[in-house]
């Protein structure tokens, strides 16, 4: 199990990364989150990276993987709070995080997840009629 706590809020999981992650910790978080999406029947995952001073290719790959795995498990991932200097550096590094939804802060992230889940449920209800 990773040392990074995963909080459950309704049908969403919230992770706030507050430490400089070594690679094994990043892998452990990826595994834990994937397990929790299934065991908690989560529909949304929000990852707050506002405390991260850098995102290198390893952490970037972890964020991409979490987004891809949660998509396969019918959950939505939103990464929130990326610092401007981190965003500038990520793009220059060559990592566009194309598979990852992002929002400016936790409020906007939750609203984004809510909107996507509600839309999907509406579409399901429509199809079933």
């Amino acid at each position: 199990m990773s040392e990074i706590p995963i909080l459950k809020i309704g049908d969403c999981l919230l992770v706030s990364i507050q430490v400089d992650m070594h690679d094994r910790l990043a892998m452990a978080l990826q595994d834990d989150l994937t397990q929790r999406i299934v065991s908690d029947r989560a529909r949304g995952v929000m990852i707050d990276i506002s405390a991260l001073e850098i995102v290198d290719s390893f952490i970037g790959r972890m964020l991409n993987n979490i987004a891809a795995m949660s998509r396969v498990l019918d959950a939505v991932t939103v990464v929130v709070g990326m610092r401007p200097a981190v965003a500038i550096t990520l793009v220059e590094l060559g990592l566009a995080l194309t598979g990852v939804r992002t929002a400016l802060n936790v409020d906007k992230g939750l609203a984004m997840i809510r909107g996507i889940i509600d839309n999907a449920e509406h579409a399901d209800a429509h199809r079933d009629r």
Partner: protein
Amino acid sequence: MLIETGETMPLRTSDDVVRVRQAVRARAVAAGFSLVDQTKIVTAASEIARNTIDYGGGGVLRIEVLRDGRRLGVRLTFTDQGPGIPDIALALTDGYTSGGGLGLGLSGAKRLSNEFAITSSLGHGTTVTLARWK
């Protein structure tokens, strides 16, 4: 060009990568780098430190603060005694990896640096030197 300060750090485990990020950040702050410049050199350091461990079997990092007239810079020299890189041009290609990564480590670190050089000798090891100026 003068070397103002220097230190050497071991690169063995993924915890060492975290320590390298913190040490490079401290030097970049001391050299008066902007937040964006700090972030760029710390990110480049993280990429190459991981390569030194994963592909070079571990090694050492030398961190130096340089002065050229009124300009300050930070130079990082990563040295390993690993298998070496057979084709440096190929290794510097975006998306190329001999491992399981994204293939952005070397090429990305080069883009984040003002100066970047690799020397490698098959069977003897690799040295990556990068610098960023204020």
